[in-house]
């Protein structure tokens, strides 16, 4: 059976670089390049890796009162988000599940830029068009690429590419500027736990910009495989695995994305469940889990308590190259969620000892503020 896959604006470049392309959320995406996932992962932690994340949804939301309007879809505080800043936010369902997770940037008072998960953008757009008043326009930007440059050398690479305004951004800062002479919407954020940037450019400029960045000796291309091991080590959720419409922000440990003002007003979708779980405690919690030994435990693996009864399930799991062993995330009954709690994993018919481990597995190295005080 074949399906027609969408191509990102960088697909021909991926082929030239020898990428292995796989179907992902309807797109042909590079899972790895010839260097391999381990080398790509290590390069991102040591220097800088370039990822094509053009499959993600890029959406402009504009109009008078856009902040208040968007707050109808998310418990994040967007009214207090200053222009030029970005925030990690959850879109919640009416029953308190997670419809999607998104990066929401305020470009101007009444102008927001959203980056949505590829597999959820159609659902999200429907939701936004239902919830937002007609005066607010919701515009998917179909003709743009999104390039992530991640790693400790990313800042120096952009400086060499003449992107002074981007380099000056603080963590979670956003600017409409230029990179190597190409008009770009740049945010200082990413999905690896490292310092880095996400660069939105017109589709026709994407290959030129990627080639300029890849020409820097510190930059190597990295695919979805390394992106997954990097984000899992960083303790970051993958939508569809670690969070979905059945998991609440409380269970997922993402209450910090809910604005304090919103927690007084309880005026967001799903507030009833979220408030109840905050009052009474959730039945389960998202945790990090480290299996003993070398064998990775994958998503779907059952977590078992000391008396042999099931207490949860893994939602992500792989080998953590920087951690130096297998790492996993999953949900366990709240009584077992404390760091260091011994549990067991049902791996291919055997029970493997494991421990609850604090997240992230590898410390974040985001850019600290340039300003003092």
């Amino acid at each position, binding site marked *: 059976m074949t399906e027609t896959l969408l191509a990102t604006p960088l697909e021909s470049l991926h082929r030239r670089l020898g990428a292995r392309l796989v179907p992902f959320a309807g797109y042909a995406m590079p*899972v*790895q390049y010839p260097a*391999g*996932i*381990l*080398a790509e*992962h290590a390069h991102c932690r040591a220097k800088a890796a370039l990822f094509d994340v053009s499959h993600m949804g890029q959406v402009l939301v504009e109009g008078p009162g856009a902040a208040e309007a968007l707050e109808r879809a998310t418990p994040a505080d967007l009214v207090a988000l200053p222009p030029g800043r970005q925030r990690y936010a959850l879109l919640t369902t009416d029953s308190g599940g997670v419809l999607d997770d998104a990066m929401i940037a305020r470009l101007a008072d009444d102008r927001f830029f959203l980056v949505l998960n590829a597999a959820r953008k159609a659902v999200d757009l429907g939701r936004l068009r239902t919830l937002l008043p007609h005066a607010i326009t919701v515009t998917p930007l179909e003709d743009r690429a999104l390039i992530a440059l991640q790693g400790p050398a990313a800042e120096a690479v952009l400086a060499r590419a003449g992107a002074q305004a981007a380099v000056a951004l603080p963590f979670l800062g956003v600017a409409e500027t230029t990179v190597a002479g190409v008009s770009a919407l740049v945010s200082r954020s990413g999905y690896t736990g490292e310092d880095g940037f996400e660069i939105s450019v017109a589709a026709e400029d994407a290959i030129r910009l990627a080639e300029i960045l890849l020409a820097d000796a510190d930059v190597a291309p990295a695919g979805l*495989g390394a992106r*997954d*091991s990097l984000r899992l080590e960083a303790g970051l959720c993958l939508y569809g695995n670690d969070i979905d419409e059945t998991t609440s922000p409380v269970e997922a440990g993402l209450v910090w994305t809910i604005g304090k003002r919103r927690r007084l007003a309880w005026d967001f979708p799903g507030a009833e469940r979220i408030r109840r779980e905050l009052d009474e405690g959730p039945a389960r919690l998202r945790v990090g889990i480290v299996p003993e030994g*070398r*064998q*990775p435990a*994958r998503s779907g693996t059952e977590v078992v308590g000391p008396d042999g009864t099931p207490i949860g399930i893994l939602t992500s799991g*792989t*080998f953590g*190259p920087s951690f130096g062993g*297998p790492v996993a995330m999953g949900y366990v009954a709240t009584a077992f969620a404390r760091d260091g709690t011994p549990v067991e994993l049902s791996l*291919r018919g055997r029970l493997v000892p494991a421990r609850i481990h604090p997240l992230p597995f590898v410390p974040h190295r985001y850019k600290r503020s340039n300003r003092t005080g």
Partner: protein
Amino acid sequence: MSEMKFTKDHEWIRLDGDVATVGITDHAQTALGDVVFVELPEVGRMVAAGEACAVVESVKAASDIYAPISGKVVEVNHALSDNPGLVNASPLEEGWFFRLEPSDAAELEALMDETAYAAYLETL
């Protein structure tokens, strides 16, 4: 040393005297990507041709390794426990998985030779 034979599941097997060595092909290691874990069978275990008896895990996924022929496991490559990357670096030599004492060496004749395996890869 006899010639190397191949399965459709991309294992190789080579008979040296009374013992056959089993590993995975270069095609298999390339398709798997970086190998991070190998689970080997217990020495002494009897395996049937086509029986899953080892596991190889890359960063992305786990795959079963099947016994190309029936026999008794007489040795496993402990070097893979500390350095599973040998499967990628040297799939046909240092990255071997286990050694079998064949129940019936004639089973080897049913497997592909190098030319037939190369032709099989062309069809994938």
